[in-house]
């Protein structure tokens, strides 16, 4: 190993340890330090369909009432929304890419595959490309979400295709899904919420 190579390796090691040191800013509050309001919300959430206080809610527990209200929106969207799970997971992956949110990306990666989103579609989203082999309904949802993210509005043609295919309830559920995952992406990026164990690849910077 030449001195220059050794130097490069040393710098790599420093970089890696630096990344590991990017610790979460609002870690879990120990149960004995929780206020009554915090304890009550945690009990409610853990006894609900989630069965745990999932990592994005750990920082939000600083405001137990906000957590209670926001997680209820999420509970509807995750467990009862009117969209096909394949469409829901497709849009969640788009939101995770949009915010480069590693926790959400890794968490939803296997869920998206399981719901029937194609591997090549996920790979394209990861790289910021438009997926080429989307099913017809996926393409309609993809175009709607891309326009709303980029333009903050949706053209008549794209709106008409979505409303015609899915109806108005699914349309409002889709808009709310994007809003909810915006909240989650913001809080987890601010918090630097640690990723969970898993085999899904993480997002790279866009090329």
């Amino acid at each position, binding site marked *: 190993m030449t001195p220059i190579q050794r130097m490069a390796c040393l710098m790599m090691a420093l970089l890696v340890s630096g990344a590991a040191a990017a610790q979460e800013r609002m870690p879990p509050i120990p149960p004995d330090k929780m206020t009554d309001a915090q304890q009550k919300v945690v009990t409610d959430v853990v006894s609900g369909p989630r069965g745990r206080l999932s990592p994005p809610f750990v920082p*939000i527990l*600083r405001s137990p009432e906000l957590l209670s209200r926001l997680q209820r*929106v999420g509970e509807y969207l995750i467990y009862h929304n009117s969209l096909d799970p394949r469409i829901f997971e497709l849009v969640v992956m788009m939101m995770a890419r949009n915010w480069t949110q590693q926790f959400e990306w890794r968490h939803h990666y296997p869920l998206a595959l399981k719901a029937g989103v194609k591997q090549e579609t996920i790979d394209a989203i990861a790289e910021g490309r438009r997926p080429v082999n989307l099913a017809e309904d996926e393409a309609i949802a993809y175009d709607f979400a891309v326009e709303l993210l980029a333009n903050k509005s949706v053209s008549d043609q794209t709106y008409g295709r979505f409303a015609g295919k899915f109806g108005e*309830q699914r349309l*409002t559920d889709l*808009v709310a899904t994007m809003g*909810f995952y915006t909240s989650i*992406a913001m809080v987890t*990026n*601010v918090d630097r919420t640690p990723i969970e164990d898993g085999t899904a690849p993480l997002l790279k910077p866009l090329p």
Partner: protein
Amino acid sequence: MVSIKQLPWALMATLAASCAIAQQRLSPIPADQYSADQKKVVADIAASGPRKEIFGPLLPMMRSPELAYSAERFGEHVYYNSGLDKRVYELAVILLARQMTQQFEWRVHYPSALKAGVKQADVDAIAAGRRPRTLEPDEAAAYDFIVELYKRNEVSDATYARVVDKLGERGVVEIVGLLGYYTTIADMMNVNRTPLNPGTAPMLKTLAKPLP
């Protein structure tokens, strides 16, 4: 060429055309056409919340009653119980309205921001896409936090430390909750093309990069 006599009609036609363009896509469902689920949401909100009714901009969501209910409850917390200083709250809302060029939110919150004590010069700067120069220290901490979050999708240690120092961890979480809530409303209104309140005109110009 339009003659003077034809002018009023030409104007009327133009106005009618622009009204047609601006029509709501998801106009409010008349109460007498509500389903049982929708009626239940109306009753539950009337019985529980400080507002007693679904907030106007959320009305398109009545297409999905359970969503409308949970979004209203989320919004009630943000609006009534965030614990943020009203000045910082309103500053964050007009920044979000500027970022998304959401004319309705800007029109409603521009006077609230002034009333809460945000300086006129700072509001004008935000509208024009300039960096405001006379923010108070807590306003500046919130401003830098929000702008950095929009630009980089995350915030630096220095900016994070400063906003926690001014607003506390809870305040930071409440700011993010506020941004998420108003993003949802702004998206919903932009998709719906919610019209401005009668007698008001749009105030924001379109800017390629709204936040300086």
